[in-house]
Protein backbone atom coordinates (compact mmCIF):
# COMPACT_ATOMS: atom_id res chain seq x y z
CA UNK A 1 0.00 0.00 0.00
CA UNK A 2 1.18 3.50 -0.64
CA UNK A 3 -0.27 6.94 -0.20
CA UNK A 4 0.22 9.67 -2.75
CA UNK A 5 0.46 13.24 -1.55
CA UNK A 6 -0.31 15.85 -4.19
CA UNK A 7 2.56 18.13 -4.97
CA UNK A 8 3.30 20.81 -7.44
CA UNK A 9 5.59 20.27 -10.37
CA UNK A 10 9.20 21.19 -9.82
CA UNK A 11 10.32 23.98 -12.12
CA UNK A 12 13.89 22.86 -12.59
CA UNK A 13 13.45 19.64 -14.42
CA UNK A 14 11.58 18.26 -17.35
CA UNK A 15 9.33 15.26 -16.96
CA UNK A 16 8.76 14.79 -13.27
CA UNK A 17 6.32 14.17 -10.52
CA UNK A 18 6.42 14.17 -6.77
CA UNK A 19 4.87 11.99 -4.19
CA UNK A 20 5.32 10.92 -0.63
CA UNK A 21 5.29 7.23 -0.10
CA UNK A 22 4.02 4.97 2.55
CA UNK A 23 5.76 1.66 2.52
CA UNK A 24 3.98 -1.63 2.23
CA UNK A 25 2.38 -2.91 5.37
CA UNK A 26 4.86 -4.79 7.48
CA UNK A 27 7.84 -3.19 5.82
CA UNK A 28 10.10 -0.90 7.69
CA UNK A 29 11.27 2.49 6.60
CA UNK A 30 14.81 3.16 5.57
CA UNK A 31 16.86 4.92 8.16
CA UNK A 32 19.43 7.44 7.09
CA UNK A 33 19.79 8.98 10.52
CA UNK A 34 22.11 8.02 13.31
CA UNK A 35 19.45 6.01 15.04
CA UNK A 36 17.05 3.72 13.35
CA UNK A 37 13.83 5.60 12.95
CA UNK A 38 10.44 4.73 11.65
CA UNK A 39 9.26 8.14 10.55
CA UNK A 40 11.56 8.55 7.57
CA UNK A 41 9.64 9.17 4.39
CA UNK A 42 11.45 9.18 1.12
CA UNK A 43 10.12 11.64 -1.40
CA UNK A 44 10.67 11.20 -5.08
CA UNK A 45 12.05 14.55 -6.14
CA UNK A 46 12.82 13.75 -9.69
CA UNK A 47 12.15 11.03 -12.18
CA UNK A 48 13.70 12.12 -15.38
CA UNK A 49 13.39 9.66 -18.16
CA UNK A 50 16.18 11.11 -20.23
CA UNK A 51 19.57 11.35 -18.59
CA UNK A 52 20.91 12.29 -21.97
CA UNK A 53 21.03 10.10 -25.03
CA UNK A 54 24.66 9.03 -24.41
CA UNK A 55 23.59 6.32 -21.97
CA UNK A 56 21.96 4.31 -24.75
CA UNK A 57 20.15 2.12 -22.24
CA UNK A 58 23.34 0.70 -20.80
CA UNK A 59 23.72 2.61 -17.54
CA UNK A 60 25.28 0.20 -15.09
CA UNK A 61 26.82 2.11 -12.19
CA UNK A 62 26.39 5.34 -10.29
CA UNK A 63 28.44 7.17 -7.71
CA UNK A 64 28.38 10.54 -5.98
CA UNK A 65 31.45 12.74 -5.78
CA UNK A 66 31.26 14.75 -2.52
CA UNK A 67 34.05 17.07 -3.66
CA UNK A 68 32.29 18.38 -6.75
CA UNK A 69 28.72 17.39 -5.74
CA UNK A 70 28.35 15.71 -9.10
CA UNK A 71 27.47 12.18 -10.10
CA UNK A 72 29.34 9.73 -12.27
CA UNK A 73 27.36 7.36 -14.43
CA UNK A 74 29.05 4.28 -15.84
CA UNK A 75 27.95 2.74 -19.11
CA UNK A 76 28.87 -0.90 -19.53
CA UNK A 77 28.88 -1.27 -23.30
CA UNK A 78 28.50 0.39 -26.61
CA UNK A 79 31.35 1.36 -25.82
CA UNK A 80 32.10 1.72 -22.12
CA UNK A 81 32.00 5.33 -20.95
CA UNK A 82 31.73 7.47 -17.83
CA UNK A 83 29.42 10.48 -17.79
CA UNK A 84 29.67 13.20 -15.18
CA UNK A 85 26.34 14.83 -14.48
CA UNK A 86 24.69 17.12 -11.99
CA UNK A 87 21.96 16.13 -9.54
CA UNK A 88 19.21 16.86 -12.03
CA UNK A 89 20.75 14.59 -14.65
CA UNK A 90 22.34 17.15 -16.96
CA UNK A 91 25.43 15.57 -18.51
CA UNK A 92 28.43 17.82 -17.85
CA UNK A 93 31.16 15.85 -19.59
CA UNK A 94 31.97 12.50 -21.14
CA UNK A 95 35.00 10.49 -20.08
CA UNK A 96 36.20 7.87 -22.52
CA UNK A 97 37.68 4.66 -21.17
CA UNK A 98 39.55 2.18 -23.32
CA UNK A 99 40.61 -1.39 -22.60
CA UNK A 100 37.92 -1.90 -19.97
CA UNK A 101 35.21 -4.54 -20.29
CA UNK A 102 31.69 -4.59 -18.89
CA UNK A 103 32.25 -1.78 -16.44
CA UNK A 104 30.01 -1.60 -13.38
CA UNK A 105 29.77 0.17 -10.00
CA UNK A 106 32.23 2.94 -9.44
CA UNK A 107 33.26 4.46 -6.11
CA UNK A 108 35.01 7.27 -7.89
CA UNK A 109 35.17 9.47 -4.82
CA UNK A 110 37.85 7.11 -3.55
CA UNK A 111 39.95 7.67 -6.62
CA UNK A 112 39.64 11.39 -6.13
CA UNK A 113 41.06 11.05 -2.64
CA UNK A 114 44.19 9.49 -4.07
CA UNK A 115 45.09 12.66 -5.90
Amino acid sequence: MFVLVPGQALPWCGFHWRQSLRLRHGWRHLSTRQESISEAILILLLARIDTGAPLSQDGSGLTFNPVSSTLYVVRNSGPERIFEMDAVSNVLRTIGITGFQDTEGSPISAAILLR
Partner: protein
Amino acid sequence: MTEERRDRIAVFEIGSGSPITIDISAAQVYTFSAASGLNTATDNFGLEGLSYNPSTGTFAMVQEKSSVAFFEFSLPAVGTVINATSPFNLSAATYGITDAAGVVHLPSGNVLILSDESETLLEIDPATGDLIGTFDLGATHPGGSPPASYQPEGVAFNPATGDIYVLSEPDAFYVLSNPNYVLPERARAEPRLVVDGRRCGSIAFRRRRVDRAHYSPRARRASRRDGRW
Protein backbone atom coordinates in the same frame (compact mmCIF):
# COMPACT_ATOMS: atom_id res chain seq x y z
CA MET B 1 35.36 0.51 -10.93
CA THR B 2 34.54 -3.15 -11.41
CA GLU B 3 34.85 -5.20 -14.57
CA GLU B 4 32.09 -7.71 -14.18
CA ARG B 5 33.17 -10.30 -16.73
CA ARG B 6 36.82 -10.14 -15.69
CA ASP B 7 36.05 -10.41 -11.97
CA ARG B 8 38.39 -7.60 -11.04
CA ILE B 9 38.47 -3.93 -10.12
CA ALA B 10 40.41 -1.04 -11.58
CA VAL B 11 41.50 2.03 -9.65
CA PHE B 12 42.35 5.11 -11.64
CA GLU B 13 42.33 8.86 -11.45
CA ILE B 14 39.99 11.10 -13.38
CA GLY B 15 41.50 14.46 -14.08
CA SER B 16 39.80 17.64 -15.06
CA GLY B 17 39.08 18.74 -18.58
CA SER B 18 36.93 17.45 -21.35
CA PRO B 19 37.04 15.44 -23.43
CA ILE B 20 39.41 13.01 -21.78
CA THR B 21 40.08 9.34 -22.31
CA ILE B 22 41.54 6.93 -19.78
CA ASP B 23 43.22 3.74 -20.90
CA ILE B 24 43.25 0.73 -18.63
CA SER B 25 47.05 0.75 -18.78
CA ALA B 26 46.89 3.84 -16.56
CA ALA B 27 44.85 2.00 -13.91
CA GLN B 28 45.87 -0.19 -11.02
CA VAL B 29 44.07 -3.46 -11.62
CA TYR B 30 43.35 -5.84 -8.75
CA THR B 31 42.08 -9.40 -8.89
CA PHE B 32 40.63 -11.43 -6.04
CA SER B 33 42.03 -14.46 -4.26
CA ALA B 34 40.26 -17.78 -4.72
CA ALA B 35 39.53 -17.74 -1.00
CA SER B 36 37.38 -14.66 -1.55
CA GLY B 37 34.72 -16.95 -2.96
CA LEU B 38 33.66 -14.96 -6.03
CA ASN B 39 31.65 -16.61 -8.76
CA THR B 40 34.17 -16.58 -11.60
CA ALA B 41 32.43 -19.30 -13.62
CA THR B 42 29.57 -17.20 -14.99
CA ASP B 43 30.49 -14.15 -17.02
CA ASN B 44 27.53 -11.91 -16.43
CA PHE B 45 26.67 -12.77 -12.82
CA GLY B 46 29.69 -11.12 -11.31
CA LEU B 47 30.68 -7.88 -9.64
CA GLU B 48 27.81 -5.49 -10.07
CA GLY B 49 28.25 -2.88 -7.37
CA LEU B 50 31.11 -1.25 -5.52
CA SER B 51 31.19 1.35 -2.76
CA TYR B 52 33.86 3.03 -0.71
CA ASN B 53 33.49 3.86 2.97
CA PRO B 54 35.65 6.91 3.71
CA SER B 55 35.22 6.43 7.45
CA THR B 56 36.96 3.06 7.50
CA GLY B 57 38.97 3.08 4.27
CA THR B 58 37.30 -0.12 3.15
CA PHE B 59 35.26 -1.13 0.12
CA ALA B 60 31.99 -3.02 -0.16
CA MET B 61 31.01 -4.99 -3.23
CA VAL B 62 28.03 -7.05 -4.33
CA GLN B 63 27.88 -10.04 -6.64
CA GLU B 64 24.83 -10.17 -8.85
CA LYS B 65 23.84 -13.86 -8.74
CA SER B 66 24.87 -17.47 -8.23
CA SER B 67 24.93 -16.63 -5.51
CA VAL B 68 23.99 -13.13 -4.48
CA ALA B 69 26.80 -12.05 -2.18
CA PHE B 70 28.21 -9.12 -0.24
CA PHE B 71 31.96 -8.63 0.17
CA GLU B 72 34.24 -6.25 2.04
CA PHE B 73 37.91 -5.60 1.45
CA SER B 74 40.76 -3.13 1.72
CA LEU B 75 43.08 -2.31 -1.14
CA PRO B 76 46.31 -4.30 -0.83
CA ALA B 77 49.74 -3.37 -2.12
CA VAL B 78 49.98 -3.00 -5.87
CA GLY B 79 50.61 -6.34 -7.57
CA THR B 80 48.92 -8.45 -4.92
CA VAL B 81 45.47 -9.95 -4.90
CA ILE B 82 42.55 -8.80 -2.80
CA ASN B 83 41.33 -11.05 -0.02
CA ALA B 84 37.67 -10.18 0.29
CA THR B 85 35.46 -11.42 3.08
CA SER B 86 31.71 -11.88 3.38
CA PRO B 87 30.69 -10.59 6.81
CA PHE B 88 27.13 -11.85 6.29
CA ASN B 89 25.29 -14.10 3.88
CA LEU B 90 23.23 -11.97 1.49
CA SER B 91 20.93 -14.85 0.71
CA ALA B 92 17.67 -14.54 -1.19
CA ALA B 93 15.93 -16.55 1.49
CA THR B 94 16.88 -14.13 4.25
CA TYR B 95 16.55 -10.81 2.47
CA GLY B 96 13.94 -11.54 -0.20
CA ILE B 97 15.95 -10.40 -3.21
CA THR B 98 16.88 -12.42 -6.26
CA ASP B 99 19.84 -10.35 -7.37
CA ALA B 100 22.07 -7.45 -6.32
CA ALA B 101 22.86 -4.58 -8.68
CA GLY B 102 24.40 -1.86 -6.53
CA VAL B 103 25.68 -0.93 -3.11
CA VAL B 104 26.50 2.31 -1.35
CA HIS B 105 27.60 3.21 2.18
CA LEU B 106 25.58 5.48 4.42
CA PRO B 107 27.27 7.78 6.93
CA SER B 108 25.93 5.55 9.70
CA GLY B 109 28.13 2.73 8.42
CA ASN B 110 25.15 0.80 7.13
CA VAL B 111 24.91 -0.07 3.45
CA LEU B 112 22.12 0.35 0.93
CA ILE B 113 21.89 -2.61 -1.40
CA LEU B 114 19.95 -2.26 -4.63
CA SER B 115 18.18 -5.18 -6.24
CA ASP B 116 17.29 -4.84 -9.91
CA GLU B 117 14.90 -7.76 -10.26
CA SER B 118 13.23 -7.20 -6.90
CA GLU B 119 13.15 -3.39 -7.41
CA THR B 120 14.07 -2.94 -3.79
CA LEU B 121 16.51 -1.02 -1.66
CA LEU B 122 17.70 -2.75 1.51
CA GLU B 123 19.45 -1.03 4.38
CA ILE B 124 21.71 -3.50 6.16
CA ASP B 125 24.18 -3.24 9.01
CA PRO B 126 27.17 -4.97 7.42
CA ALA B 127 28.73 -5.82 10.77
CA THR B 128 25.80 -7.98 11.82
CA GLY B 129 23.75 -8.54 8.67
CA ASP B 130 20.75 -7.03 10.42
CA LEU B 131 18.11 -5.75 8.05
CA ILE B 132 17.43 -2.16 9.10
CA GLY B 133 14.91 -1.21 6.45
CA THR B 134 13.50 -1.88 3.03
CA PHE B 135 12.14 0.38 0.35
CA ASP B 136 10.01 -0.73 -2.55
CA LEU B 137 11.17 1.20 -5.59
CA GLY B 138 8.19 -0.03 -7.58
CA ALA B 139 5.96 2.12 -5.39
CA THR B 140 7.73 5.27 -6.57
CA HIS B 141 5.66 5.32 -9.73
CA PRO B 142 2.32 7.04 -10.04
CA GLY B 143 -0.39 4.48 -9.51
CA GLY B 144 2.17 2.08 -8.13
CA SER B 145 2.95 0.59 -11.52
CA PRO B 146 6.61 0.72 -12.50
CA PRO B 147 7.53 0.78 -16.18
CA ALA B 148 7.92 -2.55 -17.89
CA SER B 149 11.68 -2.26 -17.72
CA TYR B 150 12.65 -0.39 -14.57
CA GLN B 151 16.01 -2.16 -14.24
CA PRO B 152 17.60 -0.09 -11.48
CA GLU B 153 21.33 -0.70 -11.84
CA GLY B 154 23.10 1.89 -9.76
CA VAL B 155 22.63 3.62 -6.42
CA ALA B 156 24.48 6.57 -4.88
CA PHE B 157 24.08 8.68 -1.77
CA ASN B 158 24.73 12.33 -0.99
CA PRO B 159 25.89 12.48 2.66
CA ALA B 160 25.32 16.23 2.86
CA THR B 161 21.63 16.13 1.93
CA GLY B 162 20.61 12.53 2.48
CA ASP B 163 19.39 12.24 -1.10
CA ILE B 164 19.48 8.79 -2.68
CA TYR B 165 20.11 8.57 -6.42
CA VAL B 166 19.00 5.60 -8.47
CA LEU B 167 20.09 4.96 -12.03
CA SER B 168 17.91 2.79 -14.20
CA GLU B 169 19.36 1.05 -17.20
CA PRO B 170 16.74 2.36 -19.65
CA ASP B 171 18.10 5.89 -19.28
CA ALA B 172 16.11 6.87 -16.21
CA PHE B 173 17.35 8.67 -13.14
CA TYR B 174 15.56 9.03 -9.80
CA VAL B 175 16.24 11.18 -6.76
CA LEU B 176 14.76 10.10 -3.43
CA SER B 177 14.89 12.55 -0.58
CA ASN B 178 14.32 12.10 3.13
CA PRO B 179 13.23 15.44 4.64
CA ASN B 180 14.06 14.14 8.13
CA TYR B 181 17.66 13.39 7.25
CA VAL B 182 20.30 14.34 9.79
CA LEU B 183 23.96 13.67 9.15
CA PRO B 184 25.14 11.33 11.92
CA GLU B 185 27.65 12.81 14.35
CA ARG B 186 30.15 10.06 13.84
CA ALA B 187 30.18 10.70 10.11
CA ARG B 188 31.46 14.22 10.75
CA ALA B 189 34.77 12.89 11.95
CA GLU B 190 37.50 13.14 9.36
CA PRO B 191 37.16 10.22 6.97
CA ARG B 192 40.22 8.69 5.37
CA LEU B 193 41.42 6.55 2.55
CA VAL B 194 43.63 3.62 3.51
CA VAL B 195 45.63 1.62 0.96
CA ASP B 196 47.69 -1.29 2.21
CA GLY B 197 47.32 -0.06 5.76
CA ARG B 198 48.62 3.37 4.87
CA ARG B 199 46.55 6.50 5.15
CA CYS B 200 46.57 8.27 1.81
CA GLY B 201 44.19 11.17 2.02
CA SER B 202 41.29 12.70 3.78
CA ILE B 203 38.10 14.50 3.11
CA ALA B 204 35.59 16.26 5.28
CA PHE B 205 31.86 16.09 4.84
CA ARG B 206 30.15 19.37 5.42
CA ARG B 207 26.50 19.73 6.14
CA ARG B 208 24.89 21.86 3.51
CA ARG B 209 21.88 23.95 4.16
CA VAL B 210 19.23 22.53 1.89
CA ASP B 211 16.30 24.54 0.67
CA ARG B 212 13.33 22.34 1.36
CA ALA B 213 10.82 25.08 0.62
CA HIS B 214 9.53 23.20 -2.37
CA TYR B 215 7.97 20.61 -0.12
CA SER B 216 4.34 21.50 0.21
CA PRO B 217 3.45 22.65 3.76
CA ARG B 218 -0.03 21.30 3.20
CA ALA B 219 1.34 17.88 2.40
CA ARG B 220 3.53 17.97 5.50
CA ARG B 221 0.59 18.90 7.72
CA ALA B 222 -1.55 16.19 6.17
CA SER B 223 1.15 13.63 6.70
CA ARG B 224 1.57 14.57 10.35
CA ARG B 225 -2.19 14.35 10.89
CA ASP B 226 -2.18 10.87 9.44
CA GLY B 227 0.65 9.84 11.72
CA ARG B 228 2.91 9.13 8.82
CA TRP B 229 5.72 11.32 10.15
